[in-house]
């Protein structure tokens, strides 16, 4: 059972170059993600960012407000022109009092594929099995015994007991 990774796909009706820029231009990335970085993304770069709130969705920006000004660090891995972009981060690293640098990081990979309707973007986040259980509960749905199973169990139960 796959508990180490999350995979998401989205079809973007936009040119490949546009999607690539939104992902790999640090200012553009910050626009939708809600963070400002101290420079340009390049392979191997350690990026220091600050959470500022997304500019794309005011409602989400409002929800991000408690985290404004907090540090947000990512470490760029690969940049294969208009095809693949990857970086590492510490999931849910939002407590200013905690030093996350010694903890394992997850790997986020964006893959771009051309289709007839647009760009199929696949995002995977992996490495969850290395993250301490308490942190996982804060950050995502996965654990070594299979939260996927648990989710199904819970959903089935709730469906039977509305």
């Amino acid at each position, binding site marked *: 059972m796959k508990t180490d990774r*999350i995979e*998401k796909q*989205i079809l*973007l*009706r*936009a040119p490949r170059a*546009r*999607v690539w820029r*939104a*992902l790999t231009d640090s200012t*553009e990335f910050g*626009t*939708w*993600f*809600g963070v400002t970085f101290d420079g340009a993304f390049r392979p191997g770069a350690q990026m220091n960012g600050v*959470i500022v709130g*997304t500019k*794309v*969705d005011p409602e*989400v920006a409002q*929800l*991000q407000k*408690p*985290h404004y000004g907090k540090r*947000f660090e990512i470490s760029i891995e690969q940049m294969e022109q208009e095809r693949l972009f990857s970086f590492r*981060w510490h*999931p*849910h*690293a*939002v407590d200013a009092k905690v030093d996350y640098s010694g903890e394992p990081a997850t790997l986020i990979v964006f893959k771009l594929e051309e289709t007839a309707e647009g760009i199929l*973007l696949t*995002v995977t*986040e992996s490495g969850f099995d290395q993250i301490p*259980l*308490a942190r*996982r*509960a*804060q*950050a*995502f*749905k996965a*654990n*070594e*015994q*299979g*939260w996927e*199973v*648990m*989710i199904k*169990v*819970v*959903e*089935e*139960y*709730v469906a*039977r*007991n509305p």
Partner: protein
Amino acid sequence: MRGIPKSRAEDTAQSSAALFAALGDQKRLWLVARLCHDGPASITRLAAGARITRQAVTKHLRVMEHAGLVRSSRRGRERVWQLEQHKLDEARRYLNQISLQWDEALERLRALVEA
């Protein structure tokens, strides 16, 4: 929004951690599935299908009871165990919420590139 939790997520994160730790065991997941499928059951009945001892079943139920996932009540001469639905609802809501974080971030990306 990925990596940036909503404040409500933070509030519930701690109790969810205990909840998920209680479920982080295949035997316990099996017991939850069994109670979910068959309804309230005694330890004897649970142990019969679990291929583990009554003592082990009892131990697992106690862990889950501590996390608020199950409770027991006396029915005639035996004690029966059942799931606490509100606790499972809480788990489901929390899991749904965190699973949406990537979806939400990607929707914002879409809004930007398709504009």
